[in-house]
């Protein structure tokens, strides 16, 4: 089985995963992980709860995760790799040092509210000025969250008080800033205990700024923008592999495995496209083969001839697309119609049935990064897929599955910590054992990002097939065993 857990135990950068007992990581990670706490896990959780039971002025003495390498970056794709930086960020877990742990639980609650924010209603797109385009993703995410809530309520809801969980749903309508108002409403008016969301990179950033000040957990299951987590906010978690991880794998595949040297990019002219290709651009340049040409297109457009003609004239070996599935499929169709037979690579948003339907035969051989393997043999995943189909009448996609996992993590944290936002944060941030979701094991980095294994998806016989790095024997650069600032010292000492 290609699980994230197998990868996890090999990561030199995340050995200090455990909040309370770092030395127990290897043994715990090697065995099959479940969400049912075993004796050791339960003991750690009980100890954690004891430690975080403090007065408003006390900061609990939690052991902080210490990563030796940011995001499992190979040495040769690190920025300014020939220079020792003055400061390297995101290697040590942030603390929450405020008084929130002492806030007493409220009485007389009828439900335990959890917030959801996502693009679920049609509105105006900032990118195009026309109709928004992320509702399908947001509704899929909402369904996953709903299913997790319903299942929790079927098994007793919030057991301490025998009351149900309630999902408080907000629309993230895509206009910049709107998500901030929605988070304010969720935090102060609805008084939810934690929030799941959202997908759009800009809205996600706005939401977490509010969450920081309002001191409430934001779990993200749909925004793969690497900078989302690079903000140093101790209230923010992400349970999906990001564009950095997927880009690292794609770059390794393109340059180390296939030995391309001339690649061009076509991307959406929105924030998703702009930030999504950053690691591709950087990785290509750092490996000695800068992207030859990067062309942006208007999101929602149907004619890409301007961009494609320029790419065609650039003597490229392959083309990478970063944008939505519809545009991705239309582009590959137009490429083939123009006689451009370049191998076509794309981002995870293109891994969809919609892409296959629009691209038809042109989809064959397309390869995309993907944050998980939905075809792996896993009992929990199969049950989830079956129940989801029964409940909603459609197949769960990546947004549904990650939404389900993110909401399940929040429910677990609330059940474990009780009705205190700071303690909910603590148990998520310091749980010794990584959450085992339907998308795989979710090991969090020091900056609380999902460092689980990511995959490549390839269209074969009209179907998406998923491959790990090992499956395709994709080489990887050396991952240094220590942080960059102390690396030089170690070299000087002859280590």
């Amino acid at each position: 089985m290609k699980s994230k857990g197998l990868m996890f135990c090999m990561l030199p950068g995340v050995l200090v995963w455990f909040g309370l007992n770092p030395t127990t990581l290897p043994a715990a990670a090697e065995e099959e992980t479940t969400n049912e706490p075993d004796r050791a896990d339960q003991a750690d959780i009980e100890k954690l709860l004891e430690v975080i039971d403090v007065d408003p002025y006390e900061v609990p003495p939690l052991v902080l995760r210490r990563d030796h390498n940011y995001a499992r970056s190979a040495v040769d794709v690190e920025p300014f790799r020939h220079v020792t930086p003055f400061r390297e960020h995101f290697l040590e877990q942030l603390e929450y040092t405020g008084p929130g742990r002492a806030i007493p639980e409220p009485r007389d609650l009828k439900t335990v509210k959890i917030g959801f924010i996502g693009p679920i209603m049609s509105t105006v797109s900032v990118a195009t000025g026309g109709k928004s385009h992320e509702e399908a993703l947001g509704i899929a995410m909402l369904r996953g969250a709903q299913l997790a809530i319903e299942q929790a309520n079927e098994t007793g809801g919030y057991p301490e008080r025998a009351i149900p969980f309630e999902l408080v749903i907000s629309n993230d309508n895509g206009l910049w800033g709107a998500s901030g108002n929605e988070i304010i409403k969720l935090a102060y008016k609805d008084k939810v205990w934690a929030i799941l969301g959202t997908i759009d990179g800009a809205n996600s950033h706005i939401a977490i700024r509010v969450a920081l000040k309002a001191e409430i957990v934001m779990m993200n299951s749909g925004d793969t923008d690497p900078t989302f987590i690079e903000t140093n906010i101790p209230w923010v978690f992400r349970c999906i592999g990001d564009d950095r991880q997927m880009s690292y794998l794609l770059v390794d595949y393109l340059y180390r495995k296939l030995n391309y040297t001339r690649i061009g990019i076509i991307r959406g002219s929105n924030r998703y496209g702009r930030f999504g290709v950053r690691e591709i651009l950087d990785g290509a340049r750092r490996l000695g083969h800068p992207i030859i040409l990067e062309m942006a297109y208007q999101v929602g457009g149907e004619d890409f001839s301007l961009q494609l003609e320029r790419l065609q004239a650039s003597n490229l070996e392959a083309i990478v697309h970063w944008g939505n599935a519809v545009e991705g499929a239309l582009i590959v169709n137009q490429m083939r119609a123009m006689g451009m037979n370049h191998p076509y690579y794309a981002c995870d948003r293109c891994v969809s049935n919609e892409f296959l339907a629009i691209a038809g035969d042109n989809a064959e051989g397309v390869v995309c990064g993907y944050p998980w393997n939905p075809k792996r043999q896993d009992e929990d995943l199969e049950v989830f897929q079956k129940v989801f189909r029964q409940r909603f009448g459609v197949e769960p996609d990546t947004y549904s599955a990650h939404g389900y996992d993110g909401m399940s993590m929040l429910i677990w944290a609330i059940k474990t910590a009780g009705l205190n936002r700071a303690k909910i944060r603590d148990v998520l941030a310091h749980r010794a054992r990584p959450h085992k979701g339907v998308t795989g094991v979710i090991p969090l980095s020091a900056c609380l990002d999902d460092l689980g294994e990511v995959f490549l998806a390839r269209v074969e016989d009209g179907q998406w097939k998923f491959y790990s790095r090992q499956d395709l024997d994709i080489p990887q650069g050396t991952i240094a065993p220590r942080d960059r600032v102390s690396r030089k010292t170690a070299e000087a000492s002859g280590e």
Partner: protein
Amino acid sequence: MNPITCRLGGVMVLLTAFLVGPWTVVRESIAVAPSEPNSPQKTGDRAGAASPAPDLPGMPYVYTKWKQYTTKDGLPNDHIFAVKVDGDRVWVGTEDGLACLDKRTSKIQTWGEEQGLPWRAVGAIDVHPKTGDVWLGLFGGGLARFSGGRFDHWHQLNSGLVNDVVYGVCVENDNIWAATTAGASRYNPVTGEWSIFTEKNAPMEEIWNYGCCYADGLVYLGVWGSGVLEYNIERGTWKDYLDPDGEMEIDLYRDDGIVHVITTGVSYVEKTLWVTTYFGASRYDGRHWRGYFAHESGLPSDFNNAVIGRSANEAWFSTDKGLGVLADFPTDTWVTYTTDHTTHKGKAVVQQGTDVLMVIDTPPNLPHNYVLWVDFDGDDAWVGTSKGLGHAIGRGYYPGLRRPKDALGKNN
């Protein structure tokens, strides 16, 4: 005369006051005992007992006399987002209401939504020097003016305010600037004109404004993800300050620009710009940058919520682990304030760079070590924390370092 405990080469030695002078800076940890026995944390107008600040040449001024205010003293909420001193009044923005502390009587008046405050969370405050109007940035509720006992309210649906989540507010001439989560708005209450600044008309790679300040014809915006923007009022032009390495996960060189683009606070005073981020802090004098990180300075933490400059050489940094005061820029001399609430003792650490010069025990100083805001009040300072308001009393305050000829008996 208080005994001074001095650690020299790891050995604790009891010194007596006759050791005062001729002074050289002692580069060891010195603990000055408080002048009164330890007392429980005090609140309200009952000041914590003060221990004398070390009146030593080469030493910065240390605030040893503090008062704390909490809900027990009449604040509507202990989570203090903003503080603004206005003559005898101290305006306090909290997570659940506005307060005004009368310094003469120590009485606190409060306003919540039931008293007309448009929204409960007050995230920023400024006072118009001409009119005395109090301008409030409401965290999720827009912009409000408190004048003549009445609240006026501007929000996304009735004005040119670009977003209701307002993080910063500042007065510039007749204009009021609001730093919001989706751009900056400028409002002229005289003409009723609104201006909006976003990525459409300003160099905002991201539009998530956090802080703003005005001085000398320049408005500075701290923009989360977009560094610092400088707006020249006379020219109507923008200038941006970004982290030159362009990378989120590293700061390549400390002194090449702002240390990170996730900017949280700006303060411009005496032609010097102070900047905070969640990754450290920076100072810029128009020619040279200087970066500050916790591991090599008196910053209690790299997680900085805000900064306010007192001069080109002094700035106060609000962090999640205490209050860091760069007391003298030329010598890199810091005073770091924290309170240990389990022992009811405060602590002020004086250091130059990483060299600790003195550790001074004080009565409780900060109401909580999670500091969110500071405003100056002459020689005093008011400190907003996540669990109350602190008043640092600066009797005998002096800027920079004590000069040798000023020592002995002239402090306090």
